[in-house]
C-alpha cells in the first residue's frame, strides 16, 4: 500500500497551548498544500481548547469525530478510496493541573479498529509524553529541550498508530447500549451552501429539556459541531488532494467524567442536495423505557431520508416528547436565540 493511501496526523498542545504536530505527507503533495497543512493542527485542536474553557469546572471533552466519505459522482473513476476518516482526541492534565491535548487524524482505505487506535492514543502515547517529559527533565536538567523531545515522541507515536492501521472494525459492547434521544438535527446543504438547519427537541418549558442540560455541554455547542467538523474535514481532504470525495459527519462523541454523549447522523444526496438527520443521544437519562439502541435510531433516521413523509412523523417515533415546532439553527443569530432559551436551567 502506498503512503498516500492514508491520511495520518498527530497533534499535541502542551499546558501553554503551544502546538506541535507530525503529519505523514506524500511526496507528491503540492508544496502549497504542505504549507497549508501547517494550520491543520490548530483547526483540529481549536474546538478542544474551547470545550475545555467552556464550563471548565465540568470539562466536556470531544473524544471522537467520524465522517463517512462518498465519491463525488463526476469523479468515480478513481480507485484509491478512503473508507474511513476519523479524529480521536485525548485531554490529560499536566502535573501543574493544566490541560494538554493530543489529537490523531486518520483517513484510511479500511474500516479500522477504532478502539485499538483510541486505546493506544489515550492509554499510551499521551501519558508517555507527559511522563517522559518529567523524567527527561529530571535526568537531563537544563540540557533538556522539549521541542526535540516532543518531535521524537510524535514521530514514535505516529509510527505506533500506523502499525495498527489496516484492521477491520469490530463491534464493541458500547454500541449495544441503550440511549435516550434529546434532539434531532436536520441539515440541508446544496452545492456546499447551507440551506437549512433545524433542531427538533422538547418544548422550552418541558422539564425534560432542563433535565437534558445535565447530560450535554449545551444545545448551542452540539448544534454547531456537525457543521464545523464537516467543513473542516472537507477542507482537510482537499489539502491532502482528495478532491474526489466529500464527507458527512457520522459520529461525534463527547464525554465529561462519567457522562457520555453521542451525536449520530445519517444522510443522502439527491440532485446535489445533501440532507442529513442526526440524533443527539445520551445513556442513563433516567427514562429506560424510552431508551433504545443505536440501530433503532439509525433505522428511523434512514426512514426520514427515504420515506416520503413529513420528517416529524418519524421524529416523534424517535422521541414522543418532541414538539413539531422545530428550532432554526442556520445562522449565528438563530443559535444565540436557541442558547438563550434552551441553555438556561430556569
Amino acid at each position, binding site marked *: *500500500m*502506498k*503512503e498516500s493511501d492514508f491520511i495520518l496526523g498527530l497533534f499535541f498542545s502542551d499546558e501553554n497551548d503551544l502546538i506541535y504536530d507530525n503529519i505523514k505527507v506524500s511526496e507528491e503533495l503540492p508544496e502549497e498544500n504542505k504549507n497549508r497543512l501547517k494550520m491543520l493542527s490548530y483547526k483540529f485542536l481549536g474546538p478542544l481548547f474551547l470545550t475545555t474553557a467552556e464550563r471548565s469546572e465540568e470539562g466536556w471533552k470531544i473524544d471522537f469525530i467520524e465522517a463517512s466519505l462518498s465519491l463525488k459522482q463526476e469523479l468515480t473513476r478513481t480507485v484509491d478510496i478512503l473508507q474511513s476518516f476519523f479524529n480521536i482526541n485525548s485531554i490529560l492534565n499536566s*502535573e501543574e493541573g493544566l490541560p494538554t491535548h493530543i489529537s490523531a487524524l486518520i483517513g484510511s482505505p479500511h474500516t479500522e479498529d477504532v478502539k485499538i487506535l483510541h486505546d*493506544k492514543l489515550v*492509554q*499510551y502515547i499521551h*501519558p*508517555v509524553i507527559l*511522563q*517522559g517529559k*518529567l*523524567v527527561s527533565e*529530571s*535526568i537531563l536538567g537544563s540540557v533538556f529541550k522539549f521541542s526535540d523531545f516532543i518531535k521524537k515522541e510524535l514521530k*514514535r507515536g505516529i*509510527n*505506533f498508530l*500506523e*502499525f495498527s492501521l489496516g484492521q477491520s472494525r469490530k463491534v464493541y459492547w458500547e454500541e449495544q447500549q441503550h440511549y435516550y434521544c434529546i434532539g434531532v438535527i436536520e441539515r440541508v446543504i446544496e452545492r456546499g451552501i447551507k440551506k437549512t438547519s433545524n433542531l427538533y427537541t422538547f418544548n422550552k418549558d418541558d422539564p425534560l429539556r432542563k433535565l437534558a442540560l445535565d447530560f450535554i455541554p449545551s444545545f448551542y455547542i452540539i448544534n454547531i459541531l456537525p457543521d464545523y467538523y464537516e467543513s473542516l474535514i472537507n477542507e482537510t481532504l482537499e489539502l491532502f488532494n482528495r478532491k474526489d470525495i466529500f464527507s458527512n459527519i457520522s459520529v461525534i462523541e463527547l464525554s465529561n467524567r462519567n457522562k457520555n454523549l453521542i451525536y449520530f447522523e445519517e444522510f443522502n444526496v439527491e440532485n446535489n442536495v445533501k440532507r442529513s438527520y442526526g440524533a443527539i443521544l445520551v445513556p442513563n437519562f433516567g427514562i429506560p423505557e424510552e431508551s433504545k439502541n443505536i440501530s433503532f435510531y439509525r433505522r428511523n433516521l434512514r426512514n426520514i431520508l427515504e420515506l416520503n413523509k413529513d420528517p416529524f412523523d418519524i421524529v416523534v417515533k424517535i422521541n414522543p416528547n418532541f414538539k413539531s415546532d422545530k428550532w432554526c439553527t442556520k445562522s449565528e443569530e438563530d443559535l444565540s436565540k436557541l442558547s438563550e432559551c434552551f441553555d438556561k436551567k430556569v
Partner: protein
Amino acid sequence: MEIINLDELYDIDKDRLFKYYERIKNQFSNLEPLKIVAKFLNNQSIGDSIDKVYDILDFYKDKIKKCILDFAFEWIRAQKIRLEYKKYLIRAQYSDYELAIDDCVFLFFIKYDKYLRTIFKDDVKEFEISALYEIFFIPFQISSLNIKNLLERHRNKIPTLFKELKRINTSLITLRLALEQIIKSDYDGVLSSRREEAQKKDIMGKKTLVAQDMQIEFNGTLLERMIKTYCFNKRDIKIADIDNGIVSFLNSYFKFGKFYDYDEFEEKLKNSLAEYINSGLTERYKKPDSLEFLKKLITEVLNQFRTIHTIKKLDGAAWVNDLKPSLKNFFIKFTNDLT
C-alpha cells in the same frame, strides 16, 4: 483505581502451585521460609541458582504489602506473560526497535504493571520496580540476576519523582526503560532465527544465487525480492517495507552489543548490497555493467556517510541506526530511477 483482574488475562493455577509449595515446605522443614520459597521458585525453572533467587526475595520482601508467596506467584505469572509475548514477537514485523518496544509494552505489560504495583508498598522506588521487571522478564540463560548490580544500574537510569509530597506517576516510562533492552534483544533473536530459517530453506532448495554465497554475511534477500517485484509490476514499494528491508539487511550482519570498526565492514556491505540488488534486477533492467555501477553508487553513498559520521568504532545497533537513513534514501532513489 482501576481494578485489574489479571487471572482472566494470564491465569496461573495457584491451587496446584500452593500444594507444590506445601510439599516442599514439608520436605525441607529445617530451612528458613525464604529459602523454601526460593527453592520452590527454582524448581519452577525460575532463576539460575537458589542463592540468587533468595537474594532477590530477601530484597523485595520488605517492599511488598502481601506475603512473599504472593510475590513468588507473580514471578511465575511473569513467565507466562513472557511466553505469550514471545509467541507474539515471533510473528511480528517491526520497522524499528522503538516500534517493537511500544507495541509489546502496550499489548503485554501495561495491565501487568498496574496490577503488580498494587502489591507494592507506597514507598517503593521506581528503579526497584524497573529492576524487578528485568528480573521477571529477562531470559534466564543470559541472566546473572545479581540483585545488587541490577539495582545499581537501574538507580542511575530511573528516577522516582515527587511534587511536594505527592508521588508523580511515571509508570509507563519506568516500564518502557525497564523493558527496552529485553525487547530489543528478544527481537534481535527473532530476526536472527528468521535469517537462519531462511538460510536453511535456501540451502535445502539449492538456490545458486551469487548473493547467497555463504561467505557473505550481509543478507539482503528481502531487498532482492522487493527489487524483483518492483521490476515486474512497477508498483510503488511502501516506505515501511523499504525500512524493514534495510533494517533486516543491516541486522543480518550487525549484532546488538558487539562493536564494529567501519573499515572492517565497508567492503562487505558495499559488495553484498550491490550483489543483492543486482540479483533482484530482471533481464529488462540488468546491463552487463550493472553490478559495477551499483558498487560505484553505493561507494558514493558510503563516502558521503563517512563525511558526516566520523566515529570509527560503534555498537552494532548504533551502526544500524546510523546507516539506515543513507541506505534507505539510496534504495528509494535507485528504484525511482529504474526505467
